[in-house]
């Protein structure tokens, strides 16, 4: 095997002639001119195998991330008997949309869908307004007490909303706003959940070049004008990060809705999803999975279309080192 790559005898004496030359490693009887190319090729093929091994690892790792969604969507098309079969079927044998009809028959699901959507939209827009104004003022405007006020706002980062749920519940109750959407809209916009947004916006505005504001001032803009016409439009990447965080947080809210809401037509989606149970409290899997599919697929579709901006928005949220 060695022979076909062996260099000609003419070069051999040189190779084993020098006694001071350290013994070549491996099958290193090769001539010195050939060795690098061969080692290179070996290394490259090893690297190629390494790359495919990594890709295989990624494929295996992605199963628990992708499979549940697949399983959810396909199972929602199966009848209960097929869902409970001992050996699972990857694809429904006789796909049927019957469960989807049940979703809307058993609960005011469209109304609940709308509730979640409009609450998340209001919270997102409100949080962007409040946090960008506060972030801008804390970053760019000098006024007495600014640091103290900023510290006061930052306390919200240390207070998980669960800590204050009892007093907030009492506050909402005494205002007569139980079983309304007010607490789900107002508290997230003004309270602890928006503090991270204010922090991100402030970090962003700190890095804004001062010359832009000077130019705005030259053009006769006041502070509000500078904020609205210059700073705010420039903060698109930070705003999109805040928007994503905020929307997802509101969309996922569970503790607050179950504490504040009691009528089915005021429920939000996460709450509604847990209500598909039969007379004995057992889950009606196909109906529940159909409802779950209806809540997941639209969001997933939007994400797949906009995923580049989405991921970049998060990566550039000022959270990186």
């Amino acid at each position: 095997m060695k022979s076909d790559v062996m260099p000609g005898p003419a070069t051999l004496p040189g190779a084993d002639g020098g006694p001071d030359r350290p013994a070549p490693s491996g099958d290193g009887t090769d001539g010195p001119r050939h060795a690098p190319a061969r080692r290179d090729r070996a290394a490259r093929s090893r690297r190629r195998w390494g790359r495919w091994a990594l890709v295989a690892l990624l494929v295996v790792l992605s199963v628990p991330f992708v499979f549940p969604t697949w399983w959810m969507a396909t199972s929602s098309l199966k009848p209960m008997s097929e869902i409970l079969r001992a050996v699972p079927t990857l694809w429904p044998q006789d796909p049927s949309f019957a469960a989807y009809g049940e979703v809307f028959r058993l609960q005011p699901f469209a109304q609940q869908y709308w509730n979640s959507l409009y609450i998340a939209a209001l919270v997102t827009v409100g949080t962007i307004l409040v946090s960008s104004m506060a972030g801008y003022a804390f970053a760019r405007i000098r006024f007495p007490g600014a640091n103290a006020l900023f510290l006061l706002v930052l306390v919200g980062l240390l207070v998980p909303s669960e800590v204050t749920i009892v007093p907030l519940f009492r506050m909402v109750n005494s205002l007569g706003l139980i079983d309304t959407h007010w607490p789900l809209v107002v508290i997230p916009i003004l309270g602890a959940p928006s503090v991270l947004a204010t922090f991100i916006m402030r970090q962003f505005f700190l890095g804004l070049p001062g010359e832009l504001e000077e130019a705005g001032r030259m053009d006769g803009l006041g502070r509000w004008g500078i904020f609205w016409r210059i700073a705010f439009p420039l903060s698109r990447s930070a705003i999109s990060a805040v928007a994503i965080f905020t929307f997802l947080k509101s969309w996922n809210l569970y503790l607050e809705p179950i504490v504040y809401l009691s009528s089915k037509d005021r429920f939000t989606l996460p709450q509604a999803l847990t209500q598909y149970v039969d007379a004995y409290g057992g889950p009606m899997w196909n109906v529940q999975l159909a409802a779950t599919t209806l809540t997941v697929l639209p969001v997933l579709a939007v994400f797949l279309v906009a995923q580049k901006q989405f991921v970049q928005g998060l990566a550039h949220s000022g959270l990186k080192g």
Partner: protein
Amino acid sequence: MASSALARRDAAVGYTMVAPAVLGALAFVVAPLVAVVWYSLHEWNVLANTFTFAGADNYERMLSDPGLRDSLLASLWFSIGLVVLNISLALLLAVLLNQRLPGTTTFRTFFFSPVVVSLVAWTIVWSFLLQADGGINGFLSLLGIEGPNWLRGETTAMISVIVVQVFKNVGLNMILFLAALQGVPEEVQEAARIDGAGAWRRFRSITLPLISPTLLLVSILTIVGSLEVFAQIAVLTGGGPGNSTTVLVYYLYQQAFRFNDFGYASAISVLLFVIVLVLTLVQWQTRKRWVFHEV
């Protein structure tokens, strides 16, 4: 004269702009925080409509409450498991996706997709997969393994809750790590490679120190987040079996909104706040030791 008028006008705008955030913080963070401490010193039953000063009674009750001890333990296990698994998996995925490999964008989308799936929806799907005759055991049976009833065993229930949560949110940490990794200068890596540093050595001595600010931030967010877990518990296990997955927030919810014991629930809230505060401050204080450069 003109400049002081400008400064005054500036200050007025500044106060106006921060007003919603500051008033919001006062009304919905600071005031409730003070209130919850005040409530915690009271015997308060909502149904009976009694509210009497009780001093430290609620805190004394905590000391001898086995339910609270269980929930602290459950929270501890959950946090440890979640943080270790989440951060190491997020780092592994970020490092893998930072290589020049085919299809990294697709894989990134895969790993990130559960983040956009609503939490309760994700949890419901997993509870479907994890039930005794569910998908996971179905596939295990194909391999000739009889799987346990995941959500009904004390150990497997906790493991299930952790794993479901890790797959849900690890994509977010992965993205933050990926952004940090892409900020590590290629030349430094190259120089170390020429000096003969292996891949692991380069990761430990160069990459890790350079991304340590992100590591700090991500671990703070993950630890604090792990203490707030509620929906997953409520949907997956309802705190059971026994009290094995009744984490602190779930216990707090039960005391307040199931047993209507607002005073005791307030005392638990104060405990939760103190734990979050201490953890955050400790991590922040130790940042100098393990954070290579400041943000």
